[in-house]
């Protein structure tokens, strides 16, 4: 381990951290703007040109708001709740492969913080911890509505984690690896005569459908935002929160959205691969191909964030029993069926 390796990784961590926070910040602006556009309005457009300074204004407002701590709340856990939410949301960015490597003055600079060989399981580990922030915060508030929100979040996340895991198993069978770098590399092969188009979505459409539905549920996004269902639970688990602690909860939701969009792009939509990657590499050089790939990955992520918002302003919220029925009685059997189908497919075509 030389010093340059550690320094490079540190720089990468800081950059990725900054990018994910920035994307989450502008997701809040994007959400409001996109909601406006879907409703034939303009959305926020006063702070700066086209309102692009709106997130700063929102952040400033949240920071300077009065901090209200309920008297009967459990103080330590009340503060731990939003912190845990933020922590787990940020942790999963560590293993996203942003590209193969950059060649800077003969030194290989790998564009991934950590290529752990259990990458996919790491995601599930972190995602399964994400619910603690919500649960602890909801319980520590000492409020019925918060507790109900927390309980809903817990049961919802556990239910949909199962279907999500099962949908990804089919993908693992196809790729033969849990490492995200490996999965990305496999998708760089050619399909239909075009290099870099061997995306998993062409082999796993059903798996992707299950995955995206579960991702919506895991992020507590509409139509599955029952933990913060304001018509029933006031504000859900963050009823008692104010100021930047509330901000952390909201922010964690947007980081989760960014991370799950990134995973959808990496797992099913080819990651940093794009059609014609070999052609670009042969003609413009390796670094150019990697940088265009980075841009392609970002375009995919932004599209999925847009899709999250698009669905939010289209589909109404589920009822709680419908949510549980969908998770346990439809998605899980469907995911198991998908595993069987993939197994049969591998048997037929690979041998």
């Amino acid at each position, binding site marked *: 381990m030389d010093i340059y390796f550690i320094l490079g990784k540190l720089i990468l961590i800081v950059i990725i951290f900054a990018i994910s926070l920035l994307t989450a910040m502008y997701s809040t602006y994007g959400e409001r703007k996109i909601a406006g556009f879907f409703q034939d309005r303009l959305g926020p457009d006063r702070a700066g040109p086209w309102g692009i300074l709106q997130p700063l204004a929102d952040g400033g407002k949240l920071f300077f708001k009065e901090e209200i701590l309920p008297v009967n709340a459990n103080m330590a856990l009340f503060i731990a709740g939003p912190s845990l939410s933020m922590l787990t949301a940020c942790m999963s960015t560590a293993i996203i492969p942003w590209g193969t490597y950059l060649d800077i003055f003969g030194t290989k600079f790998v564009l991934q913080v950590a290529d752990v060989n259990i990458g996919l399981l790491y995601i599930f580990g972190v995602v399964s911890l994400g619910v603690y922030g919500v649960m602890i915060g909801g319980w520590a508030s000492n409020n019925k509505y918060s507790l109900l929100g927390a309980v809903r979040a817990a049961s919802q996340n*556990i239910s949909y984690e199962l279907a999500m895991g099962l949908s990804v198993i089919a993908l693992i069978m196809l790729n033969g690896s849990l490492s995200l770098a490996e999965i990305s590399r496999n998708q760089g092969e050619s399909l239909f005569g075009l290099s870099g188009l061997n995306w998993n979505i062409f082999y796993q459409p059903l798996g992707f459908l299950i995955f995206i539905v579960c991702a919506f549920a895991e992020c507590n996004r509409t139509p599955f935002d029952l933990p913060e269902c304001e018509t029933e639970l006031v504000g859900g688990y963050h009823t008692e929160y104010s100021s930047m602690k509330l901000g952390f909860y909201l922010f964690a939701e947007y980081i989760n959205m960014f991370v799950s969009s990134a995973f959808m792009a990496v797992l099913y939509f080819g990651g940093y691969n794009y059609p014609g990657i070999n052609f670009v590499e042969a003609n413009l050089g390796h670094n150019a191909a990697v940088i265009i790939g980075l841009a392609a990955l970002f375009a995919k992520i932004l599209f999925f964030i847009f899709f999250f918002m698009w669905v939010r302003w289209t589909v109404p919220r589920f009822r709680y029993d419908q949510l549980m029925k969908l998770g346990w009685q439809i998605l899980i059997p469907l995911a198991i069926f998908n595993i069987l189908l993939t197994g049969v497919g591998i048997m037929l075509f690979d041998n």
Partner: protein
Amino acid sequence: MIDKVFYFLSFLAILAGLMVVFTKNPVHSVLYLILAFFAIAGHYILLNAQFLAVVHIIVYAGAIMVLFLFVIMFLNLNAETEPQKPIFYKFIGVILSGVLLTLFVGAFRKLDPIYSDLPQTDIGLIKNLGIVLFNEFTLPFEIISILLLAAMVGSILIAKKDKAVVE
């Protein structure tokens, strides 16, 4: 370096384990138990058993403890509602934990100290683990899966409403 991490994790695990027993608030107990699980997962990583570590976190911290927390949050346990147990129970508890302690002490006394410095192996990596599991230990693996299936069917049967009672 590894030594220091080991001692830190062990200290954390033991401290968290003690706190599970000594805290008054059951929710805090559960949270300390989660901390203990993390410390143990850290030990797995020190042994280069990444798969075991992550599965440990997913299954125990991510699923089982969430359900524990789920139930305890609903119970609203505090000093007033705690049922008065007869002294007899405490007596049995002391005896049983004493027996367990003797068992452990006896087992560790016999333990070969050669295991204190394990060679760095790749047995814990998922590929090697899978090969071992499906070659040498296929039968136990399948038997365990049948056991789990039976447990699952049993739990569904218990959870299911009895139609005769409902009507």
